[in-house]
């Protein structure tokens, strides 16, 4: 399942954010009638189509895998948390319908209607992501039911959806999708711009991608703070793990980097910022942060993986934020300067995969960090799994399948990209 999710999340993130990019491009075309915008919108639409299709089929796999791999989880939780999945289904349905209209209807519907179709694709994409993340948030902070005799009773699906971590998680994932996609697309166009500095097509593309990615990257640390405080309150073990906090202490330091050693009960080689963790987790530098020692050993997740994944995620986030700030500063100083600096463009290319890496790392933190629970404090992962033996077979089959799909997608996208228009800009003014 982790394999399917790791694959699906990339395509889902792109499926959420690309429609926004393509709609902005189409909108600019309708406003300015500059042909590059139309070409850009159509080019990005094609990319969206390819990625959406693969995202859709991998999403289908996931809906089935919920039952194929975790029948006991679904048996227990289906009635409680099935609703957001239904709503996600509808959002996805809407997105598929209007994407069909958008991709195939350039010459069949009026321009206003076409743009509106694109907007609906973008909106329903975000919505479906929000609903599905609500379900995941519930797994982290389960509400909306009571337990009697080991069975859930008094089920309240609305309370389940309005669980305490829903808002912070959905905000964080949505911003992540925009940041990651924006930066990935920006990286591609920056690379091509390095080869052909005056290319108007790539300049326009880079501007839009950096706008979307940059704004998201700047908002993300704020969202991250919200998430951290939610985790501190509802999943203190996870917080301790991702920070490598073994001892319970007041004025706990923030650890940057470092390698947790479970045997020794300490995190070595970290750069420690005094009061940092207490401040970030509780907005009070003297707050008490629960260490791992406060929890039974059999409720610890894998500290090493969770901590390192967290550092990677934050590191990538910082990188994107730095580039966003640099871009904003250059744009403010002199618009054209954005495209002239070789170093800036190189940095954008370098940072292209940062958002996707951050997404994978972040999901590793939250999912591995919740272990051994599949529903925090309620059901353990090992009690939820299917009794079907030989799971290694479908695992290998799906892994091979996904690798194959990923390879083809990358190849197709490269071919699309390689066929970029060679449009010169008469003067460098935008």
């Amino acid at each position: 399942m982790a394999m399917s999710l790791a694959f699906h999340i990339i395509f889902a993130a792109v499926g959420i954010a690309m429609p926004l990019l393509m709609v902005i491009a189409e909108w600019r075309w309708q406003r300015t009638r500059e042909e590059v915008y139309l070409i850009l919108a159509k080019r990005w639409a094609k990319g969206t189509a390819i990625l959406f299709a693969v995202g859709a089929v991998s999403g289908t796999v996931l809906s089935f895998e919920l039952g194929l791999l975790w029948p006991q989880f679904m048996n227990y939780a289906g009635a409680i948390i099935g609703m957001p999945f239904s709503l996600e289904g509808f959002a996805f349905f809407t997105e598929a319908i209007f994407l069909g209209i958008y991709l195939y209807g350039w010459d069949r519907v009026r321009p206003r209607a076409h743009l509106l179709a694109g907007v609906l694709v973008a909106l329903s994409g975000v919505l479906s992501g929000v609903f599905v993340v609500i379900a995941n948030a519930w797994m982290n902070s389960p509400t909306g039911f009571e337990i009697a005799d080991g069975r859930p009773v008094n089920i309240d699906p609305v309370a389940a959806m309005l669980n305490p971590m829903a808002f912070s998680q959905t905000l964080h994932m949505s911003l992540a999708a925009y940041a990651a996609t924006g930066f990935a697309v920006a990286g591609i166009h920056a690379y091509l711009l390095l080869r052909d500095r005056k290319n108007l097509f790539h300049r326009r593309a880079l501007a839009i991608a950096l706008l979307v990615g940059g704004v998201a990257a700047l908002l993300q640390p704020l969202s991250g703070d919200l998430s951290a405080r939610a985790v501190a309150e509802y999943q203190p073990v996870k917080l301790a793990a991702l920070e490598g906090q073994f001892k319970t202490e007041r004025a706990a330091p923030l650890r940057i980097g470092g390698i947790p050693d479970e045997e020794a009960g300490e995190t070595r080689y970290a750069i420690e910022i005094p009061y940092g963790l207490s401040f970030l987790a509780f907005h009070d530098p003297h707050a008490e942060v629960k260490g791992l020692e406060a929890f039974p050993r059999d409720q610890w997740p894998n500290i090493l993986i969770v901590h390192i994944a967290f550092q990677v995620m934050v590191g990538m986030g910082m990188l994107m934020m730095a580039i966003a700030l640099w871009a904003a500063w250059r744009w403010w100083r002199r618009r054209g300067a954005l495209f002239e600096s070789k170093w800036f463009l190189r940095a954008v290319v370098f940072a292209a995969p940062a958002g996707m890496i951050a997404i994978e790392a972040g999901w590793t933190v939250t999912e591995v960090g919740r272990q051994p629970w599949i529903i925090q404090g309620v059901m353990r992962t090992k009690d939820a799994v299917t009794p079907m033996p030989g799971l290694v077979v479908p695992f290998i089959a799906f892994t091979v399948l996904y690798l194959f799909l990923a390879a083809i997608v990358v190849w197709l996208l490269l071919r699309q990209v390689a066929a970029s228009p060679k449009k010169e800009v008469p003067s460098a003014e935008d």
Partner: protein
Amino acid sequence: MSLELLAAGAMVVSLMFYALLGGADYGGGVWDLFARGRRARAQRELIAEAIGPVWEANHVWLILVLVILFTGFPSAFAAIATALHVPLTLLLIGIVLRGSAFTFRTYDSERDEVQQRWSRVFSVASIITPVLLGVTLGAIASGTIKVENGIVTSGFWRSWLAPFPFAVGLFALALFAFLAAVYLTLETKDEKLQEDFRLRALVAGVTVGALALTVFLLAGEGAPKVRAGLAASVWALPLHAATAVAAVGAFYFLWKRKYAWARLCAAAQVSLILWGWALAQFPYIVEPDITISSAAAPPQTLRLLLAALALGALVLFPSFYYLFRVFKGRTAFAPLEEGEPGEKKE
């Protein structure tokens, strides 16, 4: 009408739309494989054009079935997903390959070898997937999935590796191929292409009849309760009569080249077959141990689910209508536009 009955009904409706819309997409893949003769290329292009804008949306009905199942009837979902782990996994692989191959074919090089490579994957996957879908439904109907205290006791292989489920699988394939051929006659104005698909529809229709009989006969041993339902209940006769009328009607209109009416009859036929199966199996979701009421989620969940479905339908049906209007224009709604008070199809 109880909440769980409504939810179960919604599942059947969703499955019906999946068969009528997504099923035809699979059928298209079958005809892609069997594209022959001078117009082979034109046949393939017609299929691609017909499926292109709508296949993603058509596909979502299956997800809807799944979602209603695991929200409204979670223990049934758990049991089905456990007992039928293998065919469902294979079904998934088929779905992934078909969707990806179709997309890759659309956006990859125009060179013939490349197109043919993806077409092969697309059409083979389009054949295997409906068979597995039918196998799954056949296994559910067969009464061989045993559940005790929430645990599946009949193993991972026995319920579906049997003649009856596979017959249902082939039946499903034939039905989808039939639907696709009938639909395709209306998707083109080229008379020669229409003739091509008319022929295919007739052949597929005969195959459907033969397989329907096979399934019915095998059900005697393979799915006795469903067979009893199909043969003996009070609604059985009117249902069979209606299905027969629709089937004969489809043949008649195909023969007479009145394709819009043929489409209506074919769709009615498939719908009636599906409802016939659902009613024959009522009140069981999984024969013989899981009923609609035993698996039902608590009323709050069902109420919310039905509310979401109603709201969703309000948004979706107009959107679907718009989608089909834009791309299928007159062809989808032809019988209505000819001034006949035909049934509403969507």
